[in-house]
């Protein structure tokens, strides 16, 4: 691997790590656009490759959070395993229905959730 490519990947990984650790998310929203912009990925490969990186990044961040005593292991497992079933169902469903209206509806739900968090 060329040095400049490794530097770009390292920068993207570091940024995703900060994002993941700070917000408790995978960091895909940081990696995908940067892979497209800096390394010429198409969006499908960028999403797929960021998913593979997330396996490592989320695990690192979870381990670091565990050292602060913040991880509720039982809840994490109770969410993570059914979530796998949900994702498989969701991707199956995505092939079969129009997602446009659902996307907009869900965006509205996210806005409502943000408001809920702000007034909490």
């Amino acid at each position, binding site marked *: *691997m060329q040095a400049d490519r*490794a530097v770009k*990947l390292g920068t*993207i*990984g570091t940024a*995703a*790590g*900060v994002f*993941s*650790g700070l*917000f408790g998310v*995978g960091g*895909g*929203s940081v*990696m995908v656009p940067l892979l497209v912009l800096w390394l010429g990925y198409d969006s499908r*490969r960028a*999403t*797929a*490759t*960021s*998913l*593979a990186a*997330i*396996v*490592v*990044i*989320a695990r*690192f*961040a*979870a381990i*670091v*959070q565990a050292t*602060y005593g913040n991880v509720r292991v039982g*809840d*994490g497992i*109770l*969410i*993570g395993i*059914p*979530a*796998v*079933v*949900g*994702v498989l*169902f*969701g991707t*199956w*469903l995505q*092939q079969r229905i129009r*997602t*446009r209206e659902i*996307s*907009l509806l869900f965006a509205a739900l996210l806005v409502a*959730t*943000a*408001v*809920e*968090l*702000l007034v*909490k």
Partner: protein
Amino acid sequence: MIGAILIGLAGGTIAGLLGVGGGVLFVPGLVLFLKLGQHQAEATSLLAIVPVAIVGTLRQDHYGNVRRDDAVVMGGLSLAGAIAGVALANSLSGEALRIAFAALILFVAFELVRSTLRGAGEEPAGEERESP
């Protein structure tokens, strides 16, 4: 316990259906329904993301979409960032972190609307897009 399972099922389904990240759903679910603090919710979400990302990666790798060498470099070099990000989160109050997270999901909502109106939401999917 039922609450956590429902958060996982619902969050996973929406993540698979719309291609948004699971964490964006797990964290508010844990805060609003299971009454976890923002720090605990974020930390627990990270753990829940791992199995989802593993399964997603296996599927995408099957389609040949994963550039493994790049993923390994990005993942491997994320450690310092993850340590810094977690330290930053833990230096903030729960309230400050919750406000920052609310800003993040507003941004995700904005991006979702933008990509949907651009037509990406109707992309006929021969292969799948998904991201936890």
